[in-house]
């Protein structure tokens, strides 16, 4: 009533849609709020306020004893090492699979316009394997490996290798198929083997893009390897988890700062390398 009483010029022309959207929103989100036990009051509850305050008070100054800094430096290097070796493992997993699955190198497709049934089945199967590898997050792989074979760096390396292998494989296939495929086709038509066609027809065309995406993934792996430390897979994350458990805020702050710096450096290095490749 109130709305229609207003002069026409002042009425919101879109109020109908807005109202519907708002109602749908509330109906959908009501239960969601209930399920998340959404209650900001808990943050101001006495007990949690005390815990938070105690924790925050220890934040400043950041821990900076020489001994601790050496420990952090060691953990940071370990994080980088896990990410680097993990990404390399991912590359070793992804590359052969991508090579097997790419349609660019299909001889039967070239000859008849359609892929031979067996080849099509193999290529689809490899794609499913890649989906399987990447559908479980790396931190879950890390938890499984830590439980099954024990704590440590190797669990982190293999976890990154598996999940990132799946991701890299998918993107490698896309890159191999999206580049200029005519050189490879010409080579195949003139009797070159698949590997020859790959090395001389596909590889030179797609190398910059392949490298650049792999470097980007390495950057992500550094972040992932910090996170995986929280479940016991070594590096900076593991130290951070220990310090949080002991509510040693100063140590946590130092490590957060180091982490942010590390991510920034990785970002810069990755951008620089990719620019040099382009």
């Amino acid at each position, binding site marked *: 009533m109130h709305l229609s009483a207003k002069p026409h010029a002042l009425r919101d022309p879109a109020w109908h849609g807005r109202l519907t959207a708002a109602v749908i929103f509330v109906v959908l989100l009501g239960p969601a709020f209930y399920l*998340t036990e959404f209650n900001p009051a*808990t943050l101001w509850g006495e007990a949690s306020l005390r815990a938070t305050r105690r924790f925050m008070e220890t934040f400043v100054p950041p821990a900076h004893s020489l001994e601790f800094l050496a420990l952090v430096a060691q953990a940071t290097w*370990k994080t980088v090492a896990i990410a680097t070796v993990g990404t390399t493992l991912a590359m070793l997993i992804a590359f052969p699979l991508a090579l097997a699955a790419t349609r660019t190198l299909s001889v039967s497709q070239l000859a008849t316009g359609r892929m031979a049934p067996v080849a099509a089945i193999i290529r689809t199967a490899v794609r499913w394997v890649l989906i399987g590898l990447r*559908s479980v997050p790396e*931190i*879950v792989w890390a938890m*499984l490996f830590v*439980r099954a074979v024990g704590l440590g760096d*190797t669990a982190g390396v293999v976890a990154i290798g598996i999940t990132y292998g799946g991701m890299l494989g998918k993107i490698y296939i896309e890159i191999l198929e999206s580049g200029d495929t005519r050189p490879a086709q010409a080579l195949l038509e003139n009797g070159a083997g698949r590997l020859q066609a790959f090395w001389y027809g596909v590889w030179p065309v797609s190398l910059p893009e392949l490298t650049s995406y792999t470097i980007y993934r390495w950057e992500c792996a550094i972040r992932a390897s910090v996170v995986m430390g929280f479940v016991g897979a070594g590096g900076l994350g593991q130290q951070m988890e220990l310090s949080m458990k002991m509510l040693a805020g100063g140590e946590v702050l130092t490590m957060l700062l180091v982490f*942010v710096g590390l991510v920034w450096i990785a970002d810069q290095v990755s951008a620089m390398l990719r620019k040099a490749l382009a």
Partner: protein
Amino acid sequence: MMLALRPLIGAAAALAFLAACIASLSGDWAGFFSRESAARMLEFVRGFWPPAMEGAFLLKVGSASLETLAISLVGTLFAAVGGLALALPAAGRWGALPRTLSRLLLNCLRAIPELVWAALAVIAAGLGPFAGTLALAVHTTGVLGRLFAEALENVPPEPVESLRRNGAGAVAAFWYATFPQVLPQLTSYSLYRWEINIRAAAILGVVGAGGLGQMLHFHLSLFHVQETASVLAAMVVLVGLVDALSNRLRTRMTA
């Protein structure tokens, strides 16, 4: 000659770096790939089958899945609101100083991963889904804020100017000219982020922040392998469903 050498030098440097990395890992490679640990791994994996299927347990998995879904939804919603609130100063609407400060804040929020935020939120808000929601909201605010700020900066200024010239206030001009222009982009960024956040919400629980992750952590720690298998399956299915749904929504919106 120099040109041909450069890639070689680059490759050699990369290999040397890799070798240094491998050397510094204490990892007991021989142990990891030994027959003994392979056997242990195999036994572990064999325990996965059959996954736990009792009705009461499945009900729990179902409610944990809903909880994960709710964490991702509410977390993303708050991030969208918070992101927009910080994107306004970050887009330089109120001068240079607020711009720099809000960008710095956004960078800090974004730089720290969800899981680390969750570990911190558990200290402040206690164990449970609320901590996970807060963590997702905080990290995603940093991500969306930056994207929203870019969208706001790139919006064509003519509609706003025409409203302002005709006497509309700054707030009205924003809601009726700028906001409708950026809304499709904002929505598609938020949906895209929701896809990522459902994955994050599924695992945040490993530090005690609710949802499927918390169940996974619990059962894995007690070596309840069959229950673990069911939780993992639920995770994969949930993520797949959300991907499909969000894909549908996005293609419908852009079409």
